[in-house]
């Protein structure tokens, strides 16, 4: 089973890190028993080394369509292929938990995405995570392939660790047969942020049983749009 990792994006290497480097030491430290030594050296050094070596430049190996097919054939659990074009990274995520209508999927390296009938409710460990989202009766509109208007709120943590909440009014429309997945219905959710001109479009391919089999959804300013493909339900 090739379950890979969604790439994390780091911020720019700013003054703060340089200052921290000045306090911490770049030399090796050793310790034993209860941890008395500083994490600063290792955390900052690793970040630094990755940047200097440009290890991130090539990115991780992307999951190929063959690998995805193979994984779907072998898996006994629900499986989703998720792709963040803006981050330039994709991964297979496997169901690890169910809480009410929300299913949580994970990569092998402890990153998770939570979906309610395929609709994003949150992510963790990706950097700039969607902390939670509420969207009224969107799941029922999608499942029944009906048009309507919903209110949506999406919550993130900002750089100071303060919760920021974005509110949207979204028009949900049925858009005929989906060009993405044969035999499914295309639906579009057009969301406009209250008080601004910011707009995003989520697109869903919904099958005859009301399940979202493929989608393109907004995960926030930092992660951008994500393409999700349900390889196995």
């Amino acid at each position, binding site marked *: 089973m090739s379950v890979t990792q969604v790439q994390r994006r780091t*911020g720019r290497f700013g003054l703060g890190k340089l200052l921290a480097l000045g306090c911490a030491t770049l030399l090796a*430290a050793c310790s034993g028993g209860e941890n008395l030594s500083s994490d600063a050296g290792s*955390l900052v050094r690793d970040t630094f080394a990755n940047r200097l070596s440009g290890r*991130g430049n090539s990115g991780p190996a992307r999951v190929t369509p063959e690998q995805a097919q193979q994984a779907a054939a072998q898996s006994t659990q629900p499986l989703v292929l998720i792709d963040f074009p803006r981050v330039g990274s994709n991964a297979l995520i496997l169901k690890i*938990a*169910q809480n009410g209508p929300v299913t949580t999927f994970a990569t092998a390296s402890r990153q998770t995405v939570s979906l309610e009938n395929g609709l994003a409710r949150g992510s963790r*460990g990706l950097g700039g995570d969607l902390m939670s989202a509420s969207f009224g009766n969107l799941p029922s509109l999608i499942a029944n392939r009906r048009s309507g208007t919903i209110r949506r709120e999406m919550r993130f943590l900002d750089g*100071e660790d303060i919760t920021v909440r974005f509110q949207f009014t979204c028009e949900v429309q049925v858009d005929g047969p989906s060009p993405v997945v044969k035999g499914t219905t295309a639906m579009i959710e057009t969301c406009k942020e209250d008080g601004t001109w910011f707009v995003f479009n989520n697109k869903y391919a919904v099958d005859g049983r009301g399940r979202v089999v493929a989608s393109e959804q907004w995960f926030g300013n930092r992660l951008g749009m994500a393409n999700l493909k349900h390889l196995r339900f």
Partner: protein
Amino acid sequence: MPNTLTATLRGSVAATLAGLTVLAAPTAIAEGIPSYNLYGLPGLIDMPTARVAPDATISTTLGGGGTQARATLSFQITPRLSGSFRYSRISDFSARGAVDGVFYDRSFDLRYQVLQEGDYLPDITIGLQDFIGTGLYGGEYLVATKEVLPGLDVTGGIGWGRLGSRNPFATLGDRPEELLGEGGLPTYDRWFRGDAAGFGGLSYAVSERLAFSAEYSSDTYAAERTRGEHDDDSPWNFGIDYRLASGGQLSLYHLYGNTIGVQFSAHINPKTSAVPGGGESAPVPVAPRAPGAASDLGWVTAGTGSYRSSLETAMTNDGLVLEGMTLEPRRAVVRLRNPRYGQVPQAIGRTARAMTRVLPASIETFVIVPVVNGMALSAVTLQRSDLEALEHRDNAEMLARAAITDGFGRAPSAFDDEYPRFGWAIAPYAQYSVFDPESPLRADFGIRAKASYRPTPNLVLSGSLTKRLSGNLSDIDRKDDDALPLVRTEKARYAKEGDPAIETLTLAHYGRVAPNVYSRVTAGYLEEMYAGVSGELLWKPVDSRLALGAEVNYVKPRDFDQMLGLRSSETRTGTIPDVNGHVSAYYDFGNGFHGQLDVGSYLAGDLGATVALDREFVNGWRVGAYATVTNTKFEDFGEGSFDKGIRITIPLGAVSGQPSTERSEFAIQSLTRDGGARLNVDGRLYEEVRSYHQPEMAKSWGKFWR
């Protein structure tokens, strides 16, 4: 099955860091940061503009030309108010305190934006330059800046003092020349007095990256011309600014009609972090109970040992330590130690999630008691059904359902095998000293070995030993005519003779003596210069913005070799008192500002108070200033009149994108003097306690589900 999940999700911080990438989207040029001048202020070349940096921006500027070199640290304290600290070097300058013709000077500025630019009105800013101290750069100004065409800024202003020295058009009273005290006091008797002159200029941004500027300077560098080498050939200065992708600025100037100058600025904003929300791996999901499972009490008779080990495994995976636990049919109480998460709600949230996966279904109430140095700091009570229902909801809903109460008497005792605990570390260290006119930056480098032994949860025996490898701290050769006992000024001798040195060797006891009350007693070699006993009490109700503390110390000076011996309290200039101490008040103002007031008897027996005000950010950044005034006369204190400084705390978590409880603190302060000096004892209670209390917990509650 909790453990299959852990297996699926196993991963370490090292592995996730290995996945860091530079595929980040191109960083937009930092928005709204104005061009900086040679004084490290928003400005043209040598003259200020009325622009302000975005709230909370910290800027550092290095610049100079000819005989002048200036390093400036600025902070946008509020959206309109900013403060700057500057350290400058003027060569070929004869003044009191100059060494070989080189004069070093410190100066502070304050700027306030009176009016913000609108369609017709300009930005207007009022500034006090070098308003504390020797006043060499002293000047005041009122300046206006307006963007008249896209990219074209026009600036005009009126300056006093230094900025009123060329072609003054008016005079407002007399501007005194004499210093107040020994310098270091606000020069309020000079502000906006004396000659006033006009200055102004233009800057034109050709692109996002490149700008050209020209200015007419109202500063004739009168002092430099009379006391040193300076030719004021022209009032016109010209500059080219280049903006780096990081938001930094590189500038090249033509100054005074005859000199080339350069400048570099870098900016950081504490409201940003390497990875917003953190780059750490995901928490384990909540495991909801099957309907009806909660009524099954069959486990009660079966023994609880296996629950401890599976909870321990789950918590260890998140870097948390289960120190103790009691299980009742409907309630579980967990004693938590948190060595990893700087944001405490995250440690609570991860513990609670682990509990939902491991503990028997009949247990509905979770009480999590975080413990530091054996002190139960708070008790966070959560209902398991709330955790199940609110996992994917707004974190505010969970906060509303959580009860955060005093931890007094609430912690289960530690498991027998948790103590004694032992740890050690060997690491390099650096110590530095700044602003000595002989050598503005001195430092020592060496190796430090630390060890700690905890026989019981509340007792810590710890020590630290250093061996210097190289450095020049011991070369400090200053002799002060001091009216106070030499409590701090023999630093150089300690540095010279203390190699190797026992920095500290103490036995400390921490405790909860009553509800809302915390205690500390530390005995032994408390710091490099003093040994003795230090006792502290702190009153801090769990939901209070206010805390009160008291500390009393009985100390004797240590031998200069920093081994086990003590020396006499008699010094060349007086006797070091045995007893010193303070009462303290701490208050969180709730708008991002935090204040502290300490009143008491300082090391040299001087009586007085220290006032500190910090701007604090939820992610752990702090920027603040403090001042200590005691009954020591200003002339007895020496240069600077009284002790004051600014300090910046940088949280490792925010700058690395990985959770950490570590913080680095930088302080920029007056030369170390004997007045207003305090004992440096480790483990003062307030900082240990407050992050586990309100209002801190509510501020960072967004991390509960992270």
